[in-house]
């Protein structure tokens, strides 16, 4: 019998001592991500690339569209300030690679944001509503799936003009389908989970269940998928640039630079090498960060 006040206090103290500090899902994930060497290295490299792309052009004495008539298609050299050499019009490749990186990263990130917003809203709505609404929304998705979207983008861009905003929207609008499917699937499976039922039984209201329990769990998948979306966006933009439908001269992007560089590979390998290096490294890093995030947020899949 613990009736005396002193005893009660002692027990409480002991209980306080025993209580382990709870760790949230995000703290756990953070810890796992920090310990993932490949992902952390990639994240650091990505940060460096982003910084270089933002501040790098300030370090050079050339502008991205300036023609240096005394240095046309010259290899890299430190003496004259063309660190990466020049292209066939005498424009400094160092500045162009970094400026092109700005455009490519912007297309990638903005496109991913468009896709994530549309996809998450659509998927979550479909999953929560269930029943007939869900069925109709999924049918619509299937129809959209069957449309050859790359073809639609080409048609849109050739018919309605080659504006960079249109490219963002077009690329973003074709990539939300997978996102919607994933989010819906996740929402559906979460609805039937025990911890949701437990919360329900405890009398937590629906909105709180959604905000506290469902959204954080879906967010993980969304975060993972959007890091994997960015590289595919960049690739799509480069594909459009290859067809001459992407960014227009004298503006440039990694895709456009690669397209130029691949043409003059035999005589001026540096024109292909530097943009290719930047692009491949960036895409690599995005993929590794995405994989790392997935491992961190969903350890059972490792």
């Amino acid at each position: 019998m613990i009736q005396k006040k002193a005893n009660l206090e002692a027990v409480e103290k002991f209980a306080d001592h025993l209580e382990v500090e709870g760790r949230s899902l995000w703290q756990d994930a953070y810890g796992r991500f920090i310990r993932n060497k490949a992902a952390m290295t990639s994240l650091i490299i990505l940060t460096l690339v982003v910084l270089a792309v933002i501040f790098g052009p300030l370090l050079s004495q050339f502008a991205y569209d300036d023609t240096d008539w005394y240095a046309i298609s010259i290899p890299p050299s430190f003496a004259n300030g063309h660190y990466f050499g020049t292209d066939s019009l005498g424009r400094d490749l160092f500045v162009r690679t970094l400026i092109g990186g700005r455009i490519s990263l912007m297309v990638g990130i903005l496109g991913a944001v468009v896709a994530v917003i549309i996809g998450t809203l659509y998927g979550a709505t479909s999953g929560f509503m269930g029943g007939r609404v869900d069925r109709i929304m999924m049918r619509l998705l299937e129809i959209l799936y069957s449309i050859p979207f790359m073809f639609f983008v080409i048609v849109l861009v050739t018919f309605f003009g080659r504006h960079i905003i249109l490219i963002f929207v077009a690329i973003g609008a074709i990539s939300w389908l997978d996102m919607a499917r994933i989010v819906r699937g996740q929402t559906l499976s979460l609805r039937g989970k025990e911890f949701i039922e437990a919360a329900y039984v405890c009398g937590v209201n629906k909105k709180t269940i959604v905000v506290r329990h469902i959204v954080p769990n879906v967010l993980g998948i969304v975060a993972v998928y959007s890091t994997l979306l960015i590289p595919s966006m960049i690739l799509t933009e480069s594909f459009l640039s290859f067809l001459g439908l992407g960014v227009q001269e004298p503006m440039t992007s990694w895709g456009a630079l690669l397209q130029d560089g691949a043409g003059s590979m035999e005589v001026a390998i540096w024109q292909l090498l530097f943009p290719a290096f930047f692009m491949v490294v960036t895409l690599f890093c995005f993929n590794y960060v995405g994989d790392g995030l997935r491992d961190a947020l969903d350890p059972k899949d490792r």
Partner: protein
Amino acid sequence: MLKFILKRVLEAIPTLLILITISFFLMRFAPGNPFSSERGLPPEVMQNINAKYGLDKPVLDQYVTYLGNILQGDFGPSFKYKDFTVNQLVAAALPVSATIGFCAFIFTIILGVAVGTIAALKQNTWVDYTIMSTAMLGVVMPSFVLAPVLIYIFCIYFDWLPAGGWHGGGWQYIILPMIGMSLLYVATFARITRGSMIETLNSNYIRTARAKGLSYPYIIMKHALKPAMLPIVSYMGPAFVGIITGSVVIETIFGLPGIGKLFVNAAFNRDYSLVLGITIMIGALTIFFNAVVDILLAYIDPKIRF
């Protein structure tokens, strides 16, 4: 099973109809037309041209006529290549894309699944890391960089293979485009196979099989491969259509007269009927192969049927 197939096929029809409708109206409401040139045609000539292609009628009438023609397999005349119908142009280009695509698809599946399985079996060893980094490189390397590099190595440096052209489809003209086209898909298949193989190998019934003392190769062939195939099969549909309809980039670089190139040229020329015809055809192929994949999945995994 028969009921499932029938249901799946019937479901595809409205999808196809909606696809045709969207493409048709998008094309009709796009600004500009194939006959508008910088100089401008005299209005009388324009009128005659419009009358010839039925463009002077109300859009809805045009739509109904178009649907009727498609039902009879007639996609109308090309706007740009005056003496050809869309059917003829597609019939000339499709075999090229399909031949290379088919070879590339077989190559992709065999190599992708094999490499992915090996990576899964050697999980977290240097073999796994090497295979998966190479696969990652395949994913991030754009084909318009890869293809010129391939040409440089095999055609210019070693002089083993021709750098492009079709010439009726001799094997030496197929190899490089096939490799250039399939590497992205090989990489993707390898990643999917590895993931699903690892998951399958960790499941309880594989442990039971091993506890029974069955040999490892037997377990993989007999117990692991079929369930591990599920995600691979579901990716096969889109991959197959993507490959078979040809990559625009690969066809441009290797100078192949395929569907992808035909389509891009048609879009540049604003050849509406050709663009429309190819879009509908590829859409129909996509729908068809998605249905085939669904039926295959239902065959492999009875859970889906019910």
